[in-house]
């Protein structure tokens, strides 16, 4: 008997050092095995770094008109010293825009704006969408019907068109554009959350919590939500890409960010007629939008694979 307890105590001590792996850790490990997801994550880290340090790494003030300060022309082609541009000329990596401002600095500041647009609209949409979807899926009945019919109405319109309509009503401007994009993307999240709540709700561990004495609040927030949110991570990551694209589109149409704000879509729009005379002014903002959207899409796809429940028991 004493032998056994001693043994147990020993096991206990060993046990404390034994490592236990949670589902999140497994997901991380799987994510790191995917090259495309890592590429997306890498680009994203660079973008976040740029956004955070834009004011220190950009060579010029993005709003400053350089007439009279430097000897540069409107829409001047890029001048990079390393690539043979004469040293006596001021260096502008991406050239000068139509208002004689440094394109490179504007692009860096645009990163900050685009990431902010993506994160705020998607967080807004996720918060509202999750609440609506969770209520809808958990309570069912008329609650479900009412909420989902409203979502169906929102989904019936093409998202950009609806966003344009909302901005037209609210008036053009970056904040209104964000709001519009946020509202337009709510249904997608509500549906995703609803469907996963519906499937998780029937699991035995939810019944177990009820049998143990948990109320609706305990069940919904401690049991169902943590297990229903994984598809939302994927949807959210991909949604950021769409939101950035939509915001750029709204700005391009003159309904989003207003000049002189350094926003990529707005920069594209301002120089769209000079595609052939000054291609660098259109190429760089376009490329920036593409890279950012691509990064989020790569990461989202990687996350989707890493979070796939069908793989949960096989590879670690």
């Amino acid at each position, binding site marked *: 008997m004493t032998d056994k307890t001693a043994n*147990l105590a020993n*096991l*206990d001590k*060993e*046990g*404390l050092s*034994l490592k*236990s*792996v*949670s*589902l*999140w850790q497994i997901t991380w490990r799987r994510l790191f095995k995917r090259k495309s997801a890592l590429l997306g994550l890498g680009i994203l880290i660079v973008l976040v770094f740029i956004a955070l340090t834009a004011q220190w790494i950009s060579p010029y003030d993005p709003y400053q008109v350089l007439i009279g300060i430097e000897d540069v022309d409107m829409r001047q082609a890029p001048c990079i010293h390393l690539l043979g541009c004469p040293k006596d000329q001021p260096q502008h990596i991406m050239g000068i825009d139509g208002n004689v401002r440094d394109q490179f600095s504007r692009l860096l500041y645009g990163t900050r704006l685009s990431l902010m647009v993506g994160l705020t609209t998607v967080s807004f949409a996720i918060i509202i969408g999750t609440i609506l979807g969770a209520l809808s899926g958990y309570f069912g009945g008329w609650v479900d019907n009412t909420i989902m019919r409203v979502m169906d109405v929102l989904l019936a319109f093409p998202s950009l068109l609806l966003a344009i309509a909302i901005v037209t009503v609210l008036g053009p401007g970056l904040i209104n554009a964000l709001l519009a994009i946020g509202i337009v993307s709510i249904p997608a999240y509500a549906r995703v959350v609803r469907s996963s709540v519906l499937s998780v709700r029937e*699991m*035995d*561990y939810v*019944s*177990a*919590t*009820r*049998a*143990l*004495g*948990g*109320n609706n609040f*305990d069940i919904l927030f401690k*049991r169902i939500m*943590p*297990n229903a949110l994984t598809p939302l991570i994927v949807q959210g990551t991909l949604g950021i890409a769409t939101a950035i694209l939509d915001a750029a589109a709204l700005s391009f149409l003159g309904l989003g960010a207003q000049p002189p704000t350094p926003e990529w879509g707005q920069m594209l729009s301002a120089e769209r007629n000079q595609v052939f005379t000054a291609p660098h002014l259109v190429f760089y903002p376009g490329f920036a939008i593409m890279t950012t959207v691509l990064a989020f899409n790569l990461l989202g796809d990687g996350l989707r694979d890493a979070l796939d429940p069908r793989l*949960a*028991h096989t590879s670690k």
Partner: protein
Amino acid sequence: METKTLKAKSSSSKMDLVRVKHLTKYFPVRSGLFQRVVANVQAVDDISFNIKEGETLSLVGESGCGKTTVGRTMLRLIEPTSGSVFFDNQDIFSLHGAELKAMRRHMQIIFQDPYASLDPRVPIGDSVMEGLTLHKIGVPQERFDMMVDVLHKVGLETYHARRYPHEFSGGQRQRIGIARALALQPRFIICDEPVSALDVSIQSQVLNILKDLQQEFGLTYLFIAHNLSVVEHISDRVAVMYLGKMVELANRETLFSDPLHPYTKALLTAIPIADPHLRRERTILKGDVPSPINPPSGCRFHPRCPIAVEQCSQQEPEFRELKPNHWAACWRAE
């Protein structure tokens, strides 16, 4: 005076802990634009039985006969259509809010599927402690100690507490499920096919744990199963269900040696024998189980019954006590 106390004592030792009266659960089938109820799935139809304190009552029947619905309705995991369930003389279906929560401490459930019954994102120690936390029993340190205690009871170690469900085997998970049910020190546990998802070698291990725990804590079990060998091993009394109705209820020995209902007889001849040379005369039932949406008239078993007469298709047989403590619902049985 003395005889009176004696009587009280003997009656209390055989007290009915759980009384189920006319329990009925219909699941509505809705269809059409306005989601009108077009039919009802009669999962459980007017079932009554008692469970004595400290005994194991088994509920057997084939898939879809409503066994699980009975169990879940008794715990109010599913709301009943009508009927009542008394636990310790308290009507469970009339309880609300805090009263119901307090009652849940005494009644617990062990689920069939050990892979679906544990939250994959929560370390199993927290799952086992969940009931204690929900009922705010003790301080965190005390809860932890109680949890470790229960884990040891089901043969797990302290270091298992911080592991996640996917790191355990099916049998271990089922023991964790038992530990979770046990943590609140309930008096009554519904075992919903607790071993049917396990290997045969693990089944006996889990069954023995259940038996040991019953002796140690004086637990009362409602054991839902379809494996009659398992039922014979663990139960005191056995109830047989067919298509939402109870067809026979008797002591284990009586039911296995002298079944009255033709359905029970057919079930018993279906138990496999471990010797391939021995052949038993089998009663093979014709056809499939009818749909519970539209059950047969009269006795629900009559289309498949080998001894059915005309009366069976017209009148529903009453569930009556044909012999002392031996109940059955059949016109032909006596």
